[in-house]
């Protein structure tokens, strides 16, 4: 267990430095530079040099990186060259939206996915087929397209949910929930498919094991065999997939936030990309990398907790 976590940390901690560094390297390789972008077509050489100095662009790559790291340690991710806003402030103000979306989708997808997976493992027939169909749909239809179809049907057509936007939970829990239904659904289809498939495979694998036969031979009721023993064993591989689902949702949220015009990090990174705001993107990359590292650590701990073999040895 400690070994597992140590290994994960050995990989993750460098990641926190390497990924932002790569963005610096790429930024220097890229044609054009931010100073020119900011100044537009019409500028004096003095103004250009002054701005470069102000942005730290006249320093070496490593010096720039070191400056940035120093800022990060103090919670300062720099300012947007376009809007002049503080990057960390911007990220903090938007992180709640993305967090609601990703966390809730993970919960919803896990509950529904595990449920579908278990049921379809226990009985072949139409439910198993339904899981197959959901998997196919989930894997094939892009989440942004599903989101648009949902808008067409349930927002525009039936008017049950708002088509776009986000309401903070402290403003109105009801409006918050309503606004999240469609985005979560759009994101969850794929996530449910992943979880359901893994759950079914894991359940089938577990139910074929020797100890299940032994439990039956001891007269243990089927309910306990399935929900206590089989499900508990299947949870080990399923927990790994839930971690992967969470990470894939970070990507999915970029698209879905755009569909629903939600003021989250995904929308921010898209805008920043359109405007070439490198510091903003670097800030978001750092944020996402930290989240990925934390999620992986959490999954490792969960794995160890679920799997005594990993825990002890």
């Amino acid at each position, binding site marked *: 267990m400690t070994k597992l976590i140590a290994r994960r940390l050995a*990989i993750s901690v*460098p*990641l926190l430095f390497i*990924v932002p560094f790569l*963005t610096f390297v*790429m930024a220097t390789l*890229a044609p*054009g530079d931010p100073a020119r972008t900011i100044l537009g077509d019409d500028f004096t050489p003095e103004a250009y040099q002054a701005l470069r100095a102000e942005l730290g662009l006249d320093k070496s790559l490593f010096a720039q990186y070191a400056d940035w790291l120093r800022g990060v340690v103090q919670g300062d991710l720099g300012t947007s060259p376009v809007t002049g806003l503080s990057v960390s402030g911007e990220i903090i103000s938007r992180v709640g939206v993305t967090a609601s979306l990703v966390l809730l989708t993970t919960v919803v997808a896990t509950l529904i996915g595990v449920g579908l997976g278990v049921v379809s493992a226990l009985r072949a027939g139409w439910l198993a087929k339904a899981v197959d169909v959901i998997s*196919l749909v989930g*894997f*094939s239809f*892009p989440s*942004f*397209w599903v989101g*648009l*179809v949902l*808008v*067409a049907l349930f927002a*525009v057509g039936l008017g049950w949910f708002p088509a776009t936007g986000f309401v903070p939970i402290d403003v109105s829990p009801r409006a918050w929930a309503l606004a999240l239904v469609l985005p979560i659904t759009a994101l969850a289809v794929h996530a449910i498919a992943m979880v359901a498939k893994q759950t079914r495979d894991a359940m089938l694998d577990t139910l*074929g*094991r*020797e*100890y299940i*036969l*032994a*439990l*039956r*031979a*001891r*007269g*243990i*009721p089927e309910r306990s065999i399935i929900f206590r*023993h089989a499900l*508990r064993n299947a949870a080990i591989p399923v927990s790994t997939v839930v971690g992967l689902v969470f*990470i894939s949702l*970070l*990507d999915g949220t*970029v*698209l879905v936030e*755009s*569909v629903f015009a939600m003021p989250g990090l995904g929308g921010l*990174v*898209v805008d*920043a*990309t*359109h405007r*070439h*705001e490198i510091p903003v*993107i670097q800030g*978001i*990359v750092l944020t*996402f*990398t930290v989240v*990925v*590292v934390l999620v*992986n650590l959490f999954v490792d701990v969960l794995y160890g907790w*679920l*799997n*005594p*073999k990993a825990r002890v040895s």
Partner: protein
Amino acid sequence: MTYSLTPDTNSARPQRVRFLRSLRRHPLGALALGLLLLLAAGAILADLLAPYDPTATDLGNSLSGPTGSHLLGTDALGRDLLSRLLFGARVSLTGTAQAVATVIAVGVPIGLLAGYLGGWVDRVAGGIIDVLLAVPGIVMLLVIVAIFGNNESVAMIALGVLGAPGMARVVRGSTIAVRNELYIKAARVSGLTTRHVLVNHVLPRVSGPIVVRASLFAGVALLVETGLGFLGFGAQPPDPSWGNMVADASQFVAIAPWMLVPSGATIALSILSFGLLGDAIRDSTAGRARGADRVRRKVAGDAKEPAATPAQPATETPDDSDALLRVRGLTVSVPAATGQADIISDVTLEIRAGETVGLVGESGCGKSMTGRAILGLLPQPVAVTGGRILFDGQDITKLGPRQLQRLRGAQIALISQEPVASLDPVFTVGHQLKEVLLRHQPGSRREIARAAVALLRDVNLREPERVMRSYPHQLSGGMAQRVAIAMALAGRPRLLVADEPTTALDVTVQAEILGLLRRLQRQTGMAVLIISHDWGVIADVCERAYVMYAGQVVEQAPVLDLFDGPRHPYSAGLLGCMPGRAARGDLLPAIGGRVPQPGSWPTGCHFSPRCPIARDDCTRDPVALNETAAGHASRCLYPLLVDEKVFSHDAR
């Protein structure tokens, strides 16, 4: 050396041919491939096929649904959606191809080298793979787009790099599997360069997984490509891409929802096709079988004809035996291509209360299935198709799941061959033991805990408290078997079925476990059915024994009589392998030939193909079990006489 190199000089071709041929057996995969080829053709021939210029506007006909002149309708500027789809395919499919080419170009060499060379190369590659796998993909791509400007090719190549670890992992795994094959080793020893071996010998062998992975990745790449297009990156208006067509449609969801359909359906169908194609290739290159299928295939794979009708159970005679367990004419079958194949045919046996009885035979003779039938625990497609299993007068084959559950553990218990595997790995021994105890006797938590410790002490486990806290993987095989015995005893069963209880254990531990079983049998007065391939075990603990061969009981006798004078040639041959040194496996050293598979049993005597004294009439009709002396019966037309030797090296 050349002989060992021949198989692979042309192995690349057969492999490829096999992909295509195998697709014939996967209609969905073939359909998917056809659709993808069609789309590619449409993209290439867009200039010829498209009815309109993709950017030509027709404001009079804007936002129309499908009409005669615009088959798939038009967008807000009246541009023809079909034409835009065809031209958009160029962008989207080119991007996908770039990403796939990159994933192959980067991932395959890394995987090949890591898998083939191992050592530090493998570790470094593994580290890089882990790092890249932890990077959020689309966000990383946006960084690249932001920095390098809106260049679709750069973005898609970057996507390929991000996808390379997944590919490398697959290739590495397959390469490790191939690395140690004989002809690869031979090629290596013969002094060919690593490069040559990898390219000419290893690569063709791992091409299957590569194609599968590439196909699945193509789906992901297309998803990302259209996603970027939707976000406004890649092809810029007015030029179409599938992604920006969805973005166009998103502006008019309220008034023209139809516009979502052509682009969305095309994207989804393409991604689906890549997925189905990948699955079809995987299924055909690595025939996967799982669960029930495997059992069915294994047991009935070569059932050529409906199994010979078993001899009529000769047991419809009034049955006044007072034995605890009476199995009468039991036939167990598995559905096969042609009707059903019998695994057990007309087995009759009985066990009196407190008696210890052996069931001997080679693996595959049906003895374990007999044991599982007694517990009502036959694996899925296998079922009882004839006969009765009377336990205490009650026919087990007629009980429902509820009644069976009440019987198991409380009346009949089982211990099995793999003691560690028979315990749930995620719960402690104590947890599992207490669950069983609670099932069979009411009691407070403290009483149950005390009973659990007492049970563990009963099976000679020192430090029962420590064992209670242990997980199964922390126990030795012998300890785990003691725990399993304790759990089997928890419900105070009247019959214990012990299926190869000592096979997986060390010799010294075997003796201890057998001693334990003997003592427990004496103390509790339960009956025990020992299923084994080992005469030593039978001789050690049993009073009577049944010998099984190819689904039938061929001889039954008190153990001493059986050892002194087997009356069936098979038993005699099997006893020739004493003392207990018989290798586990199908082939008996003393008997030529192999045990016939279920479904391919000969008519007449099942043993006739291997029997040294077989005569013509042995193969004519099913042979019945005939009593040769009191309590001794043999399923042989020409039962041996006492001390008759039929095998040259009969080692008694």
